[in-house]
Each structure stands twice: as structure tokens, then as C-alpha cells.
């Protein structure tokens, strides 16, 4: 019975997104549509990063690197898969959808594997080493892509076709993936594993004493988080006809950190709000581009001093509307 309800509700969500996509395509200018897509991609990034930075309390500041791995991986696999799948399914929306989603999954796989490679040595130790290793990883991966000839070096990868990568990224696919990933991370966060992750954040030594396999859980959470960043990267790559190493500079990681800190570290709804905020602020601060990062940096420091828990803390938005005091994670939910 529960399975039926689940499948039905998933189908309903997809239908709603499908319906909305017509509205968005008719009602908004191309520029606004782009921002809506970016907001969706940001939500995936923020919710995924929040799993490791917020829920588990291990700080990654190089997630743009995983996003880059996913973007390049999805773009490359998508280009190479196009011919065989078209020959089986013929041209059309179905074949494109299959190619796109396989490509995204491949990107997520590569990003997840690199997450394992980065996470395994650094997560055995105290969390702050992860910050340094991920920062270094983000830089190195960009240098690697900058020098990888088969991926276009510094010019970027645009596929074999002169018109660039096919524009697979539509409103429907972005928000279908947003719902899938939010659901996945939400269920994970509120599962037993999720509580173990929270325990690691609150007190690693105590968690270990309670027989929580801390290293294994940290590495798993980190790999999942890297894989979701990979999905976002794949969506991003197919939104703009190609991937350039320049798109994944340290600034991108900073954007992600701002997203999760504004909303509240450890809050999924907070991460969603932060993702939308950052996408919207690109538009709102269009004339202030060169000041944007200065303002973000100040914002980070001020939030840390004044309200380190962010807008929502570790709570969720819907808890605000419950009767009585908002339930803390772990007390129910």
C-alpha cells in the first residue's frame, strides 16, 4: 500500500512539474527562464552540500570541483552515447531523455568516485582537514581540465557537434531531479543513518563511543554529496552548450557555501531558500558584479558572528507552522 502511495505521489509531482513547465515557457522571458533553471540547479547543489556541511558537520569548500567532474562526465558520456541510442530508439524526445539521464547518472558516478578518493584520506581525521583538501582538490581538478586535450583544454568541452552540446536541460528535467534529490536527501536525513550523521556533527567522540562507524558514514555522506553536485554539474553543462574550466572556479564553491549558510546549516528547506536566493541575487546584483563577492564574504562573517545558525537553524520550514514549539530534529519528524 505504501509503495502504491509513493509511486502515485511521485507521479503526481512529475505531472505538476510537467504542467508548470508549459506555464514557465509561455509566461517568462528567456532570461527569467534561465534564472529559474539556475535556481533549480542551485537547490540541488545546496541540498547536496548541506548533507555533508550541515547535517554531518564536515566542511567542504571545494564542491565546485565535484560539480566540474559531473559536468564534464555528463557532457562527454552524453556525446558518446548519442549515436548508439539514436540508432536503437530513433530520434525524438524519448531517446533524448534516455541519453540525458544516463549522462547525468554517469556524471554523478564520476563525481561520487572522486568524492570517495578525496574523502577517504581526509575524513579519517578531524573535519577541518577536509576544508583544506577539498579546496586543493577544487583547484587541481580545474588545472587538470585546463590541460586535458580530449576535453578541450582551456576552451572547454563542446562535444563533437559545432553547435555545442544539445540543450537537454529543460524546466521539466531540472525540477524532476530537484524533487528526486530533495526527497532522497530528506529521507536520508530523517533516517537512522541521518541521525548517526547528526550525532557525528554534534559530538564525534561520543558518536564513536555509541558504536557509530563515523569514518564510514562520513565518507558515504561525502560521496553522496559529491554525486549530487555531479548531477547539478551535468544539468548545468547541458544548459549552456558547453563546459569550461572557468565555470568552476573557487567562486562557485563560495556561492554554494553562501546558499547553505543563509538558510541555516543542517536545514533542507533552508538550503532550498538559499539556492533560490543566490540565483535571484545574481539578477538583483547585476550592476554590482564586482562587489558581489565582497558582499558575500561580509555576509558570511556577519552571519557567523550574529546568527551562526542561519535563518532557520537546523529546523525545517514546515515545522514553523506546527502547533506548539517547533520540533527539533530527532524529537519526532
Amino acid at each position, binding site marked *: 500500500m505504501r509503495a502504491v502511495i509513493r509511486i502515485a505521489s511521485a507521479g503526481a509531482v512529475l505531472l505538476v512539474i510537467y504542467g508548470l513547465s508549459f506555464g514557465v515557457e509561455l509566461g517568462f522571458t528567456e532570461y527569467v527562464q534561465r534564472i529559474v533553471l539556475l535556481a533549480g540547479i542551485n537547490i540541488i547543489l545546496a541540498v547536496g552540500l548541506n548533507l555533508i556541511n550541515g547535517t554531518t*558537520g564536515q*566542511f567542504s569548500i571545494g564542491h565546485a570541483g565535484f560539480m566540474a567532474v559531473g559536468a564534464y562526465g555528463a557532457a562527454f558520456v552524453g556525446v558518446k552515447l548519442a549515436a548508439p541510442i539514436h540508432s536503437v530508439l530513433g530520434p525524438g524526445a524519448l531517446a533524448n531523455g534516455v541519453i540525458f539521464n544516463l549522462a547525468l547518472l554517469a556524471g554523478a558516478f564520476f563525481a561520487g568516485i572522486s568524492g570517495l578518493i578525496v574523502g577517504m584520506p581526509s575524513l579519517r581525521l578531524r573535519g577541518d582537514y577536509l576544508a*583544506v583538501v577539498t579546496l*586543493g582538490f577544487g583547484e587541481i581538478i580545474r588545472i587538470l581540465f585546463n590541460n586535458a586535450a580530449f576535453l578541450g583544454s582551456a576552451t572547454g568541452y563542446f562535444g563533437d557537434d559545432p553547435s555545442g552540446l544539445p540543450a537537454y536541460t529543460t524546466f521539466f528535467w531540472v525540477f524532476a531531479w530537484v524533487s528526486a534529490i530533495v526527497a532522497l536527501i530528506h529521507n536520508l536525513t530523517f533516517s537512522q543513518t541521518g541521525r548517526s550523521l547528526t550525532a557525528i556533527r554534534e559530538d564525534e567522540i*561520543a558518536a564513536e563511543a555509541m558504536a557509530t562507524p563515523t569514518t564510514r558514514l562520513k565518507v558515504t555522506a561525502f560521496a553522496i554529496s559529491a554525486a549530487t553536485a555531479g548531477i547539478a554539474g551535468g544539468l548545468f553543462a547541458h544548459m549552456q552548450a558547453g563546459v569550461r574550466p572557468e565555470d568552476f572556479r573557487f567562486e562557485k564553491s563560495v556561492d554554494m557555501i553562501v546558499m547553505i549558510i543563509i538558510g541555516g546549516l543542517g536545514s533542507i528547506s533552508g538550503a532550498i531558500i538559499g539556492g533560490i536566493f543566490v540565483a535571484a541575487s545574481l539578477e538583483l546584483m547585476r550592476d554590482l558584479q564586482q562587489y558581489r563577492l565582497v558582499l558575500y*564574504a561580509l555576509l558570511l562573517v556577519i552571519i557567523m558572528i550574529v546568527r551562526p545558525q542561519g535563518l532557520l537553524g537546523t529546523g525545517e520550514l514546515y515545522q514553523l507552522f506546527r502547533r506548539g514549539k517547533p520540533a527539533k530534529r530527532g524529537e519526532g519528524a
Partner: protein
Amino acid sequence: MTQFLQQLINGLSLGSIYALIALGYTMVYGILKLINFAHGEVFMVGAYTGYYAAGSLGVATFEARHQSFPLYLALLVLIAAMAAAALLGVAIEFLAYRPVRSAPRLTPLITAIGVSLFLQNAGMLLFSPNPQRYPAILSEVRFEVFGVIVTNIKLTIFAVALCLMLGLHLFVQKTWTGRAMRALSFNIDAAKLMGIDTNRVIRSTFAIGSALAAAGGILFGLDQITINPLMGVLTGLKAFVAAVLGGIGSIPGAVVGGLLIGLAEQLTAGYLSPEYRDAITFVILILILLLKPEGLLGVVRVEKV
């Protein structure tokens, strides 16, 4: 053999710059258990202060007349940069780190990242994002020893770094403040109970670490010829890796780590490929985290609840 000696000399001079910066990381980490991400930016501000100080002392007119910049003025530039960076370090500590000192560990870490970003981007607005040619506060003299090219700049870098490190060693071992620093890094609460003004000691730690980074900044400018507002990111990271390699919290460790990282970088650039010179640092970091996380000269500390 000649090539090896050449890389050795270049590596040691680069490594002594890393060592100077690594000292600041290791001192702050030893006391506050905080990775001071803004340290690389203090290094950058130090280099720029030197740049502007040399400019206002008329380095251009000396260059135009093909005269070398007088040594006492060069020393003045160094002192000005060190003083400015010390002030900046103390200001950062007071404004950003002190309010979050007792917060959970993640909060100071994010604050440090924020301060670092702020200084990078403020630097780009103030100093322009374009690289600047560093003024010749020391005119280069080359000489050959057994076929190896040695410049007075490389020797000066090595000598200045050595003097500063010796000075730091004496300071930490022989003065009251130095002893207080060691007490704080051993156990900050016990130090407080012994009547040590921890705020004052932390302030001097930041001042000294930042001044050393500024000296590193000027030496870096002399060595690499150009500076830019983002120079602190990669150099700061490498210096941090140096501190981890030597054993974070250990002052001799930072020196050893810095020299080793400098050597590894030069040897990679010389024998493998210059493209990998930045990557080797992180390979070293991952190896050290896997094999000996406490570092070469560090001590294993059991974490207690």
C-alpha cells in the same frame, strides 16, 4: 648534478618563503585550533604594502637612474610591510575571530573563510586584479659557483628567512610572552587559571605570525617578480600543507615542512613537468594525511571529551 644543485638552491629559497608563512598557520593552530584561512591574504597584503611603500620611497627614480635601491630603504620597506600586516592580523583577530572564539568549531572556520574571501575581493577592488611588477628593491647580481647560477636575491631570501626564524625561536623560548604562547598551546584553560592574559597572548601571536607572512610576501615578490591579489590563495595553501607536513602546532615542523615543500615543488618542476608543480603539494598532503597525520615533528594528541 649541476641541474640538481640549481633546483636545490631554487627550492630552498622558495621553501624558506613557505616556511615563513607556515609559521603563522602553525602558531595560530597551536593555540586556537583554527585554520586561519585569512593568513594567505595577510601575506598578500604584506606584499602589496611593500609594493606601495617602495613606490613612495622613490624606487622608480633609482631604477630610472640605474642605481640600486639603498639597503636601509629596503629594510624600511620590509619593516613597514611587517608592521602593516601585524596590524591587519590583530584587527582580523579582534573583529572576526574573537566574537566566535567559543562557538562550535565550524563557526570560526567559516568566519576564517569569509575573512579570506573578503580580503581577496577587497584586494581586487583596491589594487586592481591585474598582476603588478614588483619593484626592484634589490638589484639582481648573478654569480656562478661550480656552474650553478646563484643570485643575491636567492641568498637574501634565505638569509632574511633564517634570521626571522631564529628570532622567532629565541622569542618563543626566551621571553615571557613566548613562554605564555607555549602554555596556551599546551592547555588554554590551565594557562588562563595561571593568570595569563590569553587575549593579549593571542593578539601577539597573530601580530607575529602576520608580520612573518608579510616578510614572506616581500621575499615572494622579489623572487617571482609579479604579485596579484589572489597570490595568497595557492601560496597560503602550500604553506598550510607545509605546516601539516611538519606537524601542525610545531614551530620547527613548520620550517622543515616549508623547506621540503619548496624542494618538492622545484624538483617536480625541474624533472617532471612545470604543470604539476602545484599538484605535487596536494599529493604530499594526501599522503601525509594517510600515513602520518600528526606530521613529521608533531606529537600525537589523544582527543578527550
